[in-house]
């Protein structure tokens, strides 16, 4: 699909157009404490494009931390259910970080595995994701190891690559193409390819990925469910679940009823985490994952072994948020490096 350009002024006008037409625009923006969050913006000036990783990932836009599944009304022996809508108003995400857009696409698989989650896909279909090439990295980043990168387009409908005075617009999906067509007057002609190549090279040239290729890690995990390594690497894990809450791909949830008085209530889906001790606790008191290190193993297995085995892709985009958020100093890239070393070691181990 043909690349286009957009100047800062055109992009500002586009945001104004969208908001005026009633389309919500979500972009990385500064919160009062100075940190970046994906928030609704009314004008381009409020958005921070290419300014780094927002505090929480894009996941919350499609799988909210808490959302109603339906409401119910009780009247004597009778119950009436009030459904929630499964179609959503149009929404544009402007300035998604590539690793976050990739996370959303990775989750499409589990959300459409025989049973199609209408709430997830209702939001997915209503939303156009415009990623912006990433120009910030820190020592926790490892997107390159997961198949991503500063200009990766996975999960994006459009990708903006910075140019002097604006951006080159890479059209990734038919949805992105349709979006450009609707807002044709806000886009310029094709960019100069040499300029785009130079910009891309600047963004990717400085990357040093801290993790070895992950294929051997996935292979090792497949037959090392039981291994002394797990107890070792998880010693600092408190089981708080901060990693899961900031993760673009952790999607485990709980389903609970919230009574509203005696006769009304709402069933809600809330984020949950496999790192919590009660996550797998049976009513009988039996807990298949009674120790913290087996819960940590579950997180690593799910991302790098179970999900690839079931769905053909990693459940990790290398954003590094888990390492940054961990109060115990757990570092997923370090764990992956340790596993990669084990995988590379000759059979028979330490000797």
């Amino acid at each position: 699909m043909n690349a286009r350009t957009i100047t800062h002024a055109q992009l500002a006008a586009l945001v104004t157009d969208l908001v005026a037409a009633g389309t919500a625009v979500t972009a990385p923006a500064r919160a009062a404490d100075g940190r970046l969050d994906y928030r609704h913006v009314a004008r381009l000036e409020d958005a921070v494009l290419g300014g780094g990783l927002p505090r929480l990932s894009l996941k919350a836009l499609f799988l909210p931390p808490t959302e109603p599944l339906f409401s119910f009304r009780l009247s004597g022996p009778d119950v009436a259910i009030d459904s929630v809508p499964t179609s959503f108003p149009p929404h544009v995400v402007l300035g998604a970080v590539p690793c976050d857009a990739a996370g959303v696409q990775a989750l499409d698989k589990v959300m459409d595995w025989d049973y199609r989650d209408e709430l997830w896909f209702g939001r997915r279909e209503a939303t156009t994701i415009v990623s912006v090439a990433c120009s910030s990295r820190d020592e926790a980043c490892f997107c390159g190891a997961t198949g991503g990168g500063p200009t990766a387009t996975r999960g994006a409908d459009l990708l903006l690559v910075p140019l002097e005075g604006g951006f080159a617009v890479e059209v990734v999906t038919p949805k992105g193409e349709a979006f450009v067509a609707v807002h044709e007057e806000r886009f310029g002609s094709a960019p100069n390819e040499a300029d785009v190549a130079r910009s891309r090279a600047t963004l990717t040239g400085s990357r040093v990925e801290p993790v070895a290729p992950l294929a051997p890690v996935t292979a090792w995990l497949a037959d090392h469910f039981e291994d002394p390594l797990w107890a070792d690497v998880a010693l600092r894990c408190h089981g708080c679940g901060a990693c899961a809450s900031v993760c673009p791909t952790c999607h485990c949830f709980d389903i609970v009823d919230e009574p509203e008085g005696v006769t009304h209530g709402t069933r809600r889906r809330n984020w949950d985490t496999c790192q919590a001790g009660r996550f797998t606790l049976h009513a009988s008191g039996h807990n298949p994952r009674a120790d913290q290190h087996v819960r940590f193993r579950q997180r690593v297995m799910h991302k790098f072994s179970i999900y690839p085995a079931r769905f053909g892709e990693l459940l990790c985009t290398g954003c590094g948020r888990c390492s940054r958020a961990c109060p115990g100093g757990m570092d997923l890239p370090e764990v992956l490096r340790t596993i990669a070393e084990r995988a590379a070691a000759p059979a028979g181990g330490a000797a």
Partner: protein
Amino acid sequence: MNLYEPYLARVTELVDETPDTRTLRLAFQEPELARTFDFKAGQFGEYTAFGAGECTFCIASSPTRTGYIECSFKTVGKATTALRALNVGDTMGFRGPYGNHFPLERMEGSSLVFIAGGIGLAPVRSVIWNALDLRDRFKNVTIVYGARSVSDLVYKRELAEWAARPDVTLRQTVDPGGETADWTGDVGFVPAIVEKAAPSAANAYAIVCGPPVMIKYTLPVLTKLGFAADRIYTTLENRMKCGIGKCGRCNIGPVYVCKDGPVFTAEEMAKLPQEF
């Protein structure tokens, strides 16, 4: 309507099986659904007590008995306490049927050996009635059922019915100390009674359900009797929320109990990581 919305059903009958175990019979309120609802023995569902939440149980009735489904549960937590508070005529919710099933179609022409402990009889009962309602398609039917004590035996009326049938061999047992003065069944743990009953493994399938410790000690007995690991079926239970492979709770390694199970052969179980 979305995936997580339950069907509404009315409680049409309740039976107290033991002091803490109750069976509910549910009839779907939507007439078309009540007419067309179908499932296979071994499948499970999410049962709602509105305001308290959902819990996961197998469907305890047989697919051959249409117009209703049944569940049997022990009162343990919040949702089961609320389910127990329901009376005949009250509304509850059901999502399902989910998961795989006991492949009864594959067992036609064979003998069936049912082994259950405690409330583990619930999923087995679904298969037993399914098979008994199609009795001429199966050879010998043997049932070994045990509980901690006589008062812990569930489905007592049906046990009496099976005991009276000439085409069913029933061995009932209670744990030592759990017998009453008028108890005429065996006294001893289920694995030992299976060994004593010694059902023939020739052209037979075994269906085993009960507490983990019962399953653990019954499998070697079945092996000794000559049952191949791919002819022994059981069900696994793990905590579930969605029941449809999304909430990430019931995995045992790469296996999703809600979608790959809940029915597994002993052969499949042996390959699972020890995390259940």
